């Protein structure tokens, strides 16, 4: 959680030094262009983002690399900050976890479709009542240090995450685990206190990765089962990875990876153009525009819901009509045109397209921009002359700051004044997210798993992370209905109930929903295989050199 603050602090400090030394001539940060606010569900809140960059030594040598056979290929991935931990259960930032995804694996793991696929386990069965999960350990699977993975390692890893070895549960949802048993050398049985359909999804996060029970210090010598193994690390500089040749699955294509820390986002374009870096994930539209012909820009989505989140308990936003009026006044397409050259996907509720069956596309069109309607709703609500409010925006997310300015301008048309207040990320976490002391804020909220609950559970009136103070009996009932359906594994009914939740959020205008932001990945031509995931993951094993 402190990571984001530290990063901002660093940017601030660097900027300060710069100002002091060269007055104003310099050009430091496009602060966090290409970033998005991350509020992961299991990891409580913060996560730093990672902009990956792939790199061969230089232009000239990249030619050379391409000529060599696959076995000798090398790549450098640029990341905007150092990894906060190399121990999966201690990692915090999404930017760290998306890298650890390549080193560690859980019993299962998510694939690029968002499905859960077997990893350390080769199969599992679940009892009828949903309480007992029986996993079959994959045959012949090895750790990076060459030792075979045993059921004891699995037991140790899960118990550590669940807090059964003493200490707090590392993953709060794992406090639901009653016991972990190992009846024989190839079987692990996990018993839950209560049935829970998102259990498998949470088990598949990198935090729940399987590590050796006898590992003495994962922080300096990480050992996992993933397609890449750790070689060395130089703090604030780089992390070196190497293909793990005894990997159980399809081996990675590129042999060596260097993760290079590129803390200054302004240097990204220089690094790319100069040939030091070949691939950067999450560049801004502006950075992408500055790149030359050597690069291809791939377009995906960030998988989050950017919205002007409203404090539903604070006047005037406790009035549904006021919230609806704002929705009618905001023009999503215009925002996309101004902020990201029209790229991005407008959304109408707390759900983004990567969720597939849970996503209700029609909700996008619920509020088509209609200023007259907005004004009359405001008048009905008792604000015929408009009102003014403060919108707190984390200052390190340039895209949110830009969006906030466009929204403020649009709201002027219905005489509503939005005063933007830029705050630090840490202040945002404290005051807005935890303290709920705000009128409106503009951020993006993402999901740590592809379970509908990851996006929707926070809007239950008694949810601990319901920072917008949304309170709606109908919603609570629908959500309970969904949980009940999940407990009896009635997927259809659960999906229908979740969709109802989304519809309620949209119809009562809980927040002014804007978009799932576009993610731009700059790749030097000749590199292939970059794969977008519906979650916060960078999969290096699919990258290849032509």
């Amino acid at each position, binding site marked *: 959680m402190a990571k984001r603050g530290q990063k901002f602090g660093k940017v601030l400090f660097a900027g300060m030094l710069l100002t*002091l030394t060269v007055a*104003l001539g310099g050009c430091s940060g496009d602060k966090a262009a290409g970033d998005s606010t991350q509020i992961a569900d299991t990891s409580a809140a913060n996560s730093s983002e990672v902009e990956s960059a792939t790199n061969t030594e230089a232009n000239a040598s990249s030619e050379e690399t391409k000529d060599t056979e696959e076995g000798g290929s090398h790549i450098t991935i640029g990341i905007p900050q150092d990894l906060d931990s190399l121990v999966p259960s201690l990692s915090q930032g999404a930017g760290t976890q998306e890298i650890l995804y390549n080193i560690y694996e859980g019993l299962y793991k998510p694939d690029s479709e968002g499905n859960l696929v077997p990893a350390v386990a080769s199969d599992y069965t679940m009892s009828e009542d949903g309480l007992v999960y029986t996993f079959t350990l994959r045959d012949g699977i090895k750790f990076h240090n060459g030792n075979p993975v045993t059921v004891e390692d699995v037991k140790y890893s899960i118990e550590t995450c669940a807090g059964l070895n003493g200490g707090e549960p590392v993953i709060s949802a794992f406090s639901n685990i009653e016991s972990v048993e190992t009846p024989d050398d190839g079987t692990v049985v996990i018993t839950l206190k209560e049935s829970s359909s998102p259990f498998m999804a949470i088990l598949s996060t990198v935090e729940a990765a399987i590590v050796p029970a006898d590992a003495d210090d994962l922080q300096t010598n990480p050992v996992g089962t993933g397609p890449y193994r750790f070689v060395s690390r130089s703090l604030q500089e780089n992390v070196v990875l190497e293909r793990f040749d005894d990997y159980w699955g399809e081996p990675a294509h590129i042999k060596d990876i260097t993760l290079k820390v590129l803390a200054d986002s302004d240097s990204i374009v220089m690094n790319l153009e100069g040939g030091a870096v070949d691939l950067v994930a999450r560049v801004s539209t502006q950075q992408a525009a500055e790149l030359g012909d050597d690069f291809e820009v791939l377009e995906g989505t960030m998988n989050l819901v950017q919205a002007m989140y409203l404090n539903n308990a604070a006047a005037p936003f406790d009035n549904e009509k006021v919230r609806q009026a704002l929705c009618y006044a905001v023009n999503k397409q215009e925002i996309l*045109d*101004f902020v990201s050259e029209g790229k991005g996907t407008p959304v109408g509720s707390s759900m983004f397209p990567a969720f597939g069956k849970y996503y209700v596309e029609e909700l996008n069109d619920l509020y088509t921009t209609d200023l007259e309607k907005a004004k009359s709703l405001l008048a009905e609500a008792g604000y015929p002359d408009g009102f003014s409010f403060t919108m707190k925006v984390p200052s390190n997310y340039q895209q949110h700051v830009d969006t906030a*300015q466009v929204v*403020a*301008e649009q709201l002027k048309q219905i005489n509503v004044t939005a005063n*933007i207040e*830029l705050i630090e990320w840490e202040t945002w976490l404290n005051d807005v997210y935890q303290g709920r002391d705000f009128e409106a804020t503009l951020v993006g909220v993402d999901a740590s798993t592809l379970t509908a609950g990851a996006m929707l559970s926070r809007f239950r009136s008694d949810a601990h992370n319901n920072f917008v103070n949304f309170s709606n009996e109908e919603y609570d009932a629908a959500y309970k209905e969904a949980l009940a359906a999940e407990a009896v594994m009635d997927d259809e009914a659960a999906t229908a109930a979740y969709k109802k939740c989304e519809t309620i959020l949209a119809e009562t205008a809980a927040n002014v929903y804007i978009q799932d932001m576009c993610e731009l990945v700059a790749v030097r031509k000749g590199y292939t295989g970059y794969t977008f995931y519906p979650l916060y993951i960078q999969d290096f094993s699919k990258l290849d050199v032509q």
Partner: protein
Amino acid sequence: MKKKKQYAPSLILGLVITGVMLLMILVGFVYTPYDITKMDSTAKLAAPSLAHPMGCDNFGRDIFSRVLKGMGNTFVIASATVAIGTVSGVIIGAFTGYFGGWLDEVLMRVNDVVFAFPSILLALVFVSLFGTGKYNVIAALGIAFIPSFARIVRGEFIKYREMDYVRSARLAGVPQLRIIFVHILPNTMPVLASSVMIGFNNAVLAEAGMSYLGIGVQPPSASLGSMLSESQTYLFSAPWYAVFPGLMIILMVLGLSLLADRGAR
């Protein structure tokens, strides 16, 4: 006692530049060609033209209008900062310099502590405690500027307090306050005036620096520093966005520097 007054080119240049800047600031207070927050999707990052003499920013807002308003914001913040620094500095400096003793020791040591921090660092601490925004920045920079003024004024007072005319006044029973503010203070004016101008320049740069870091004027309002900050992403594709606010900062500081330079001689 001095050589005949002649108008050096640098003084004239300083006057002209400062005059033009002040004129632009005054105009900006009452009139801008465009609404400074009006966005226009057809004019995003448009190059300078007759309609937009300084081009447009990434939201299609007219940079010339924003520069006019931004100069005003920067000017107001810098003036208020210097005003706080000067008034407090003069009072502290006058009393400590004139009376000396333990009050002098205590206040000057506190002064030294404050002085030891770079003013921007001090202001950053202040802002992180009390929040961002125009008025907090004024307060933060104002406090940070007090020590330098206090020091200058104190030095002058120490110089003057043992002079014969002050001693005579004291013997004649003139009240202390009158001696301080009527007899001595006017004599410090030449030194004070040039340090005010230099201080103003520093305040302009400090405000720009604070806004550049995103803790000064809040968007969508503009100040020269915040415009510079916003423009850096577009340095290559739309250089005019950075050049004009930067140029205005340079001209504001240059004009006053030339004046202060002449005034000090």
